[in-house]
């Protein structure tokens, strides 16, 4: 699944069957190349849903067992957030030192939250994994 497809998806609590928020973005941990948390809008209890607290990341909705899973960002997740830690709209450098382009989208695995491919602004897709997200570029290790 791509970030662009997941954005706006409903987050539903399985205990109350009500919508408790919507996906507004993602926080990626470059040390593991996985999604650390989902950014949430229109939720009462906070703006962050850690990936480990998700029951299931479905095609049409994200399910959680309790609305309280959505909290304020922990210190670790806060350190991975911010304008310079975004993955979309950034310069993408390969680990070989070649500029691949600018990132327009990201493909991820709904089971594990692993980032598996990066979509560039020329619609080319590079498979591999994230190794770094810095102020200059997203560093991408190609398969």
């Amino acid at each position, binding site marked *: 699944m791509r970030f662009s497809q997941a954005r706006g998806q409903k987050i539903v609590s399985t205990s109350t069957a009500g919508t408790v928020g919507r996906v507004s973005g993602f926080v990626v941990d470059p040390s593991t190349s996985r999604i650390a948390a989902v950014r949430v809008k229109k939720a009462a209890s906070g703006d962050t849903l850690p990936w480990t607290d998700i029951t299931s990341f479905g095609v049409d909705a994200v399910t959680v067992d309790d609305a309280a899973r959505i909290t304020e960002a922990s210190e670790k997740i806060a350190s991975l957030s911010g304008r310079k830690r975004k993955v979309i709209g950034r310069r993408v*450098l390969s680990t070989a*030192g070649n500029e691949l382009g600018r990132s327009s989208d990201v493909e991820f695995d709904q089971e594990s939250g692993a980032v598996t491919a990066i979509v560039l602004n020329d619609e080319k897709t590079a498979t591999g994994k994230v190794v*770094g*997200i810095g102020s200059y*570029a997203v560093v991408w290790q190609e398969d």
Partner: protein
Amino acid sequence: MTRLLRTSEITGRPVVTLAGEDVAQIKDVVYAPGRGRVGAFTLAGRGLFAGPLPVALAWSSVVALGNDAVMIADEEVLAPLEQGVDQPATSGRQGNVLGARVLTDTGTDLGLVADVIVQVSEDDSACEVVGYEIESSDAAGSQADTLLIPLPETLSASGEHLIVPGSVTKFVRHDLAGFGAAIEGFRSHLGGED
């Protein structure tokens, strides 16, 4: 596949950590005259107001020399400049090969060095100085303004004069395509002479 690069393409390139931070840019290429190996780069800061940095990047710490960036593991690999490495940079042109005059060992003046050609091995493990791009004085028997000459594996260099074997004029090229073959040919020619 080894790659041939002009050092002017390398200088100014950003030095980027695998975490994605641009910590410096390449200033000078420093090489040992005896073996022609590139040993280190001196660095400058990034940004309009940045000057030279007091640290250097050893070739052994380079993860990859790419088309758009020089990748390093992290900022920790940048070591303080060793005594002397910054001397040439601060004392004018001395020690800088660019602008130095190339003489053959038979005493012919080939011209001034405009650029230096380095060969990077496939896995980025070695970077060797293999040629000079020269703004020619007519002696090399060519009308072209710039020409490429291959270098022997060991060369004599002082910063003022660079001495090359006289037979080099037979291996002159005008562009990087085919220059690899010229280096091979020149070096095997030198080997055959001994």
